[in-house]
């Protein structure tokens, strides 16, 4: 161990080699069969269940839990996957504490919801672990659809279209499919290369071809796609990153959190990843938490999240915030960066306390500095490279109905389109619903 948490600068190997595996193992352990039966027994099988309403993909949660309780977890998995083909990943990454589990009546009753997320994982892991794909493809229609982006929205759209018998070509800018499932979530939320395994499992439906390293606008134009296919679905996500707009942002050691998270996801040996001794993460969402917690897990001595508004406005749920603080991350709210300081490389960040008033957020007079040799920017992603001619609204592709864009024959969904919460599960819902709309439109039904 050449380095320690106290080593100055951005260096790898701050921890003993033996602890990395444990640090980046499943944050939430899977349920075993008996635990699942006990957890399932707590479900009240509510009438018009609030958890279903709270699920963006509308999974029939009471039904799948009852199927687990009665010893048929494969049937449970089919219930889940028929609504949400990425139910396996959603079981891992959904902020269930703000979705189904928040709505669970046992949360209201006891503050202890049914463990819907873990039960969903129990069911889907069983079926997917054995490589069983429970859906079959309808007779081929002869229609062809181009899907841009192999992330949650694109994959969900492609699977549903393929199931209806259409041929699908997915164009994906990255070298591997999965989108944010592969590159954008904390390592300990999805281990053992699950994102790739899930894509392989999904492709068993047949009729889907993925072209990697193929970016819209760089390698192919929208006009090419329109010419070659009967419909186009855009699910390319948000490739741009918001800037701090504070002087000194270009100093060495300042980085986009999403790139750091992607590096972590791709590194098989975490001990080679460099991290600062004093890390500052700017932002208040899940990306900020994922970057901060993983900095800590890599051995950073001090990690601080700084968010410009109040704690209640943080995009990261209280559960995520607790996860961060229990990992040793400090959270500072109501403070915004005004300067990144240092001679070439960052050494400090200066912040001003903010005030929220009728005029919006204003900088107060009080200032403070945080020592930093590494700064992660996690203040949101932006749409970049949207094709010309598409109506854009609030920085996202405008859609109406089930993902219809301003151009006939082109649909959009996921983070690049309006209406979602930038969650895997909403992307899946939008991709699936757009696929149904495309299918109806192509088949004239």
């Amino acid at each position: 161990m050449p380095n320690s948490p106290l080593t100055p600068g951005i260096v790898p190997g701050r921890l003993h080699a033996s602890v990395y595996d444990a640090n980046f193992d499943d944050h939430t352990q899977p349920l075993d069969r008996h635990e699942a039966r006990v957890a399932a027994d707590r479900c009240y099988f509510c009438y018009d269940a609030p958890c279903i309403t709270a699920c963006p993909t509308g999974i029939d949660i009471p039904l799948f839990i009852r199927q687990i309780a009665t010893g048929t977890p494969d049937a449970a998995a089919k219930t889940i996957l028929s609504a949400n083909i990425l139910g396996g990943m959603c079981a891992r990454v959904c902020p269930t504490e703000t979705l189904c589990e928040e709505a669970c009546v046992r949360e209201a009753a006891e503050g202890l919801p049914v463990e819907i997320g873990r039960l969903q994982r129990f069911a889907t892991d069983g079926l997917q672990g054995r490589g069983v794909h429970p859906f079959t493809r309808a007779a081929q229609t002869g229609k062809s659809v181009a899907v841009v982006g192999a992330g949650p929205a694109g994959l969900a759209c492609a699977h549903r279209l393929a199931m209806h018998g259409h041929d699908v070509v997915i164009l994906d800018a990255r070298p591997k499919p999965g989108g944010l499932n592969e590159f954008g979530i904390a390592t300990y939320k999805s281990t053992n290369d699950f994102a790739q395994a899930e894509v392989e499992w999904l492709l068993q439906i047949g009729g889907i071809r993925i072209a990697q390293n193929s970016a819209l606008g760089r390698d192919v134009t929208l006009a090419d796609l329109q010419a070659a296919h009967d419909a186009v679905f855009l699910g390319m996500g948000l490739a741009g990153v918001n800037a701090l707009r504070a002087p000194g942002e270009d100093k060495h050691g300042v980085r986009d959190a999403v790139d750091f998270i992607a590096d972590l996801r791709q590194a098989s040996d975490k001990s080679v990843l460099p991290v600062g001794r004093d890390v500052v993460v700017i932002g208040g969402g899940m990306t900020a938490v994922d970057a901060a917690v993983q900095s800590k897990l890599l051995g950073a001595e001090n990690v601080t999240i700084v968010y410009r508004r109040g704690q209640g406005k943080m995009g990261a749920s209280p559960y995520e915030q607790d996860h961060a603080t229990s990992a040793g991350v400090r959270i500072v709210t109501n403070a915004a960066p005004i300067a990144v300081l240092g001679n070439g490389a960052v050494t400090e960040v200066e912040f001003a306390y903010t005030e929220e008033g009728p005029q919006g957020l204003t900088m107060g007079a009080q200032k403070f500095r945080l020592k930093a040799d590494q700064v992660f920017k996690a203040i949101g992603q932006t749409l970049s490279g949207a094709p010309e001619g598409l109506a854009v609204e609030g920085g996202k592709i405008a859609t109406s109905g089930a993902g219809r864009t301003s151009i006939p024959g082109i649909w959009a969904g996921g983070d690049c389109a309006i209406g979602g919460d930038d969650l895997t599960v909403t992307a899946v819902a939008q991709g699936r619903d757009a696929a149904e709309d495309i299918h109806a439109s192509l088949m004239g039904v």
Partner: protein
Amino acid sequence: MADLTSNFIGIKSPNPFWLASAPPTDKEYNVRRAFQAGWGGVVWKTLGSEGPPVVNVNGPRYGAIWGADRRLLGLNNIELITDRPLEVNLREIKSVKRDWPDRAMIISLMVPCDEDSWRDILHRIEDTQADGVELNFGCPHGMAERGMGSAVGQVPEYIEMVTRWVKKHSRMPCIVKLTPNIADIRIPAAAAHRGGADAVSLINTINSITSVNLDSFSPEPMIDGKGTHGGYCGPAVRPIALNMVAEIARNPETRGLPISGIGGVTTWRDAAEFMALGAGNVQVCTAVMTYGFKIVSEMISGLSEYLDTKEMALSDLIGRATPNVTDWQFLNLNYVTKARIDPDACIGCGRCFAACEDTSHQAIVIKPGRVFEVIDEECVACNLCVNVCPVEDCITMVELPQGAMDLRTGKPVTEYANWTTHPNNPSAKVAAE
């Protein structure tokens, strides 16, 4: 702390909690440990005639029903009477009774249905200093096929005859243990009473198959691919046992006949309910087979606390609820209640709605925000919503006072009247107005 000292047909014990004749009372080692744990008495596992003992199966003897967390709800068994030599049992009974003179020691007996067999066995046990005998007319498997156990208990004439023999050949108090595998429990109880029984004990186990293995297609418990009905017991049978105890307690023919209550007694509360319906004491088996002898500590503390709270003596509890057990025809048809849902306690699961809407009277409405309300015009007060609600006391049945309007019938609530005088009753004793 209330005095739990029990006197059951002259047999004294420090508390009314006995262990039933069953595996826990099969040998000295167990019974000594049970007494050390605090049990008031035991009914020693059934002895048979002299000679080669019975043999048990060498595969599983028990099958079970569980809740999701493996909470044992019901147990069945295909075990027979003691499979140990008679003289060993007798020696042990005598030894234990000598060391624990304040505890009740009852010997359960089952021998062939002839007078000589009964006279012989009664003669053999005289020397043990046991406090009484219990005639096992209940065991539903194995022995019944040999003309014993429930084969006797299902024929009232045999019950009466054997009881008479026992009273003739022994001065010991005699308890007759009844099988529930009959149509009307009052008839064997009355037969025992006529035969001179000092008490009846009930229920013995119920014929049952606990489950079927859907891979091997054999009933459970499975012995080499086959299964047979076994005797069902445990918490699941308690309601059946409570009813049978009440039926005997309120039957004029057997009124006053002491009853030892058996059937799923697991907690002090279960024991108190049996006693309130007329049992003089209770016998426990499945609960100790599930949790061990220690549970008697909770039963003792719980019953004491209850009696103290109610300022009752143990004897005040016995039969306290019996007068309130009646026939349906005497229930007050003018007792009108309506379900009330407490919106503050409600967690919004909607089970009351599903139950009422799908299977009952469409008397619950969902208001915006998942607020559930009862429609008085439709509510027949069936209580199903209360039963399916997961929150205790969230839904209650509120009585309408006399004179209040019942919106369902459009008539005010009037004074007591039952079916016997109802105008719809073709054999009404009083003509309608």
